[in-house]
């Protein structure tokens, strides 16, 4: 496959599409599919055939605002329809060529205006199971450009220049990581994509893998060329069967097109990818645990160094990046590092995809430039807190992150600002909480999660999270004293300092951040035996009653 052949494929897709007067794109991502989008698509195909109009009905991945689903977009007019069901199919088809159907129209201009789509540029626009659709939108151009026009060092340089930082949560500079693996001595290097999106309440990586799987594969192949690897693994949660099936199809099609396999693009570079299934262990998001799991063992982490860059999968130098990190690579190669560097804030470049959920009007997937204020995400993109309730906090970073109180919504979203506020960027879960959420209970929820997910290898995490959970349960059921609070804080410090891996080191974050901003709620539970949000069922002892 050469760039000319790639362009030929793109041209024939455009020519084929040009035969139609309009396109009806139907979102078939999980949220829309769970509301009958499958039946809707069938009905649209049928209605389009019956109408005799030249209409292309296309299955696409996630369009974004899931709470308004099932979503349909008619192009080229770019009319977005919301809450469409199969019964609306004929109405939509017969409106084509004339004014749109007013009662189905979705006015989310503000929601989209604030967003910048880099990672999600194809989501909702291509059929994720058609490699030619991806190619028609510059797919695999970056890979072939890199192979033909750039040296591996040049690729590393461009990624470094872009300022991209790891999107899995840690924010380690991607170019630096690539450079380290590239310089590592030894053959048989590996590239691993971490698709073990274990953070509950986050689904960015699922959506990217399902809506635009080739983008991940292309990013991995470019990385492999840059670091000198010839074999890659995508580690995906078994809980994401659709992502697994889409990636399987994508790998097969890329092999058929000669975009994976030996001597790609006529160069001497060979690369192939295999999928490995996770089996439901949050700790496997930690890179050394993930490696153990790919090797078929229990997913327990080991001390670093050596880092995977020096000794990873089967002892070989290994590059591990998150799904979204790889998804950023093709546009960086195509548009240049400076282009990417120009977006975002001072030390956090580019965009970030967030899964916006919880007590917010527009739930779904959003992509925003780094540095955007939380307030803009919540009020403008998210449409605010519904049902007359008041915003209380925004949780980012999942079980490793923290809660940012409503007063701090002026905060710009960046790795450093979120960390300074006691949370982390994390992989991109953003859960909005209103006045009906109890912050002590929220902390207890996350600690219970970490307790269950602790692999048990080191004592601070294994025993510490269990004791933290007991103390938080006591606070929630009304049997705690102020001494317990002191003990809890003490324990948080120990678990944070002494745990072996990121899971334990960050497990106290939800407790520490809620203690920092919502200490009065803890005190209210302990001293007055009252849950201000009315969530916890406190057992009120007799002496307080009297």
């Amino acid at each position, binding site marked *: 496959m050469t760039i000319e052949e790639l362009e030929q494929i793109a041209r024939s897709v455009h020519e084929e599409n040009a035969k139609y007067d309009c396109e009806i794109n139907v979102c078939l991502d999980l949220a829309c*599919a769970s509301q009958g989008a499958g039946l809707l698509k069938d009905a649209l195909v049928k209605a389009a055939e019956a109408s005799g109009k030249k209409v292309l009905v296309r299955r696409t991945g996630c369009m974004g605002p*899931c*709470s308004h689903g099932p979503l349909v977009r008619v192009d080229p007019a770019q009319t977005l329809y919301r809450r469409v069901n199969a019964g609306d199919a004929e109405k939509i088809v017969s409106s084509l060529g004339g004014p749109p159907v007013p009662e189905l129209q979705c006015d989310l201009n503000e929601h989209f205006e604030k967003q910048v789509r880099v990672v999600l540029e194809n989501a909702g626009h291509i059929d994720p199971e058609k490699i030619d659709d991806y190619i028609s939108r510059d797919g695999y151009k970056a890979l072939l450009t890199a192979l033909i026009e750039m040296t591996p060092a040049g690729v590393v340089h461009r990624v470094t220049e872009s300022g991209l930082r790891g999107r899995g949560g840690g924010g380690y500079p991607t170019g630096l990581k690539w450079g380290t693996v590239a310089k590592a001595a030894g053959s048989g290097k590996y590239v691993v994509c971490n698709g073990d999106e274990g953070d509950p309440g986050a*689904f960015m990586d699922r959506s990217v893998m399902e809506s635009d799987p080739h983008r991940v594969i292309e990013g991995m192949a470019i990385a492999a060329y840059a670091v000198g690897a010839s074999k890659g693994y995508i580690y995906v949660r078994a809980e994401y069967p659709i992502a697994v099936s889409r990636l399987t199809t994508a790998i097969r099609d890329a092999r058929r097109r000669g975009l994976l396999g030996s001597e790609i693009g006529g160069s001497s570079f060979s690369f192939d990818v295999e999928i490995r*299934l996770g089996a439901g262990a949050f700790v496997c998001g930690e890179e050394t645990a993930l490696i153990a799991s790919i*090797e*078929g063992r229990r*997913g327990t982490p080991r001390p670093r160094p050596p880092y995977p860059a020096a000794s990873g999968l089967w002892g070989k130098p290994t590059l591990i990046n998150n799904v979204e990190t790889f998804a950023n690579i093709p546009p960086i190669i195509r548009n240049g590092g400076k282009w990417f560097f120009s977006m975002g804030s001072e030390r956090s470049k580019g965009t970030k995809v967030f899964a916006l959920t919880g007590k917010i009007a527009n739930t779904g997937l959003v992509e925003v430039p780094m540095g955007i204020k939380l307030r803009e995400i919540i009020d403008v993109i998210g449409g605010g807190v519904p049902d007359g309730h008041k915003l209380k906090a925004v*949780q980012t970073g999942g079980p490793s992150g923290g809660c940012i109180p409503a007063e701090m919504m002026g905060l710009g979203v960046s790795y450093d600002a979120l960390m300074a506020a006691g949370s982390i960027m994390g992989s991109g879960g953003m*859960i909005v909480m209103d006045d009906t959420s109890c912050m002590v209970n929220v902390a207890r929820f996350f600690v219970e999660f970490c307790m269950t997910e602790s692999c048990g290898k080191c004592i601070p995490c294994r025993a510490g999270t269990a004791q933290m959970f007991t103390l938080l349960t006591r606070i929630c059921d009304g049997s705690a004293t102020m001494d317990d609070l002191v003990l809890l804080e003490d324990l948080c410090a120990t678990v944070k300092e002494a745990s072996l891996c990121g899971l334990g080191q960050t497990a106290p974050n939800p407790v520490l951040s809620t203690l920092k901003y919502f200490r009065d709620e803890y005190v209210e539970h302990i001293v007055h035996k009252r849950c201000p949000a009315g969530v916890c069922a406190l057992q009120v002892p007799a002496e307080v009653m009297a």
Partner: protein
Amino acid sequence: MHAFTPPPLPSDDKRWKIVNGTMRKNGFARHALIETLHTVQSSFGYLDDDSIRFVAQSLRVPLSQAYGVVTFYHYFSLKPPGKHTLTICAGTACYIKGSDKLIASAEKRLGVAPGQTTGDGNISLMVARCVGACSRAPVVLSDGEVSGEVTGDQVLAQLERWAVE
């Protein structure tokens, strides 16, 4: 040193051939353990002693290690599932939207705790860590089919349909 011969299939059940196929595809390499256990579970619904023993022998993995892997990962089950499975998501978004109430009402109706199956083997109640449909929380899977914005009444209605069929 003689060549290793994999053990014979435990029975003439065709599903063992599927399991064997996964191992063969991976050249009976030890690192195929988790992949193979996935195939066993998707073919048989769960993992029992015989299947773990067979996989361990075929891949030349110590039985203790195979058992260690099975019990480490939440996805693997050592108990046969019921005829139907109700899975309630307890991810963060679902928790914020009240999934604990759904779990409580299902527990009460079925008389079993999460992870258990009703005495007649009809319904298993499971709690998921997160199925990634957070934008439509709270989410419930009825025999794998995802429903969003689920109410307690809808959960009970689903259990009722399964109970009377």
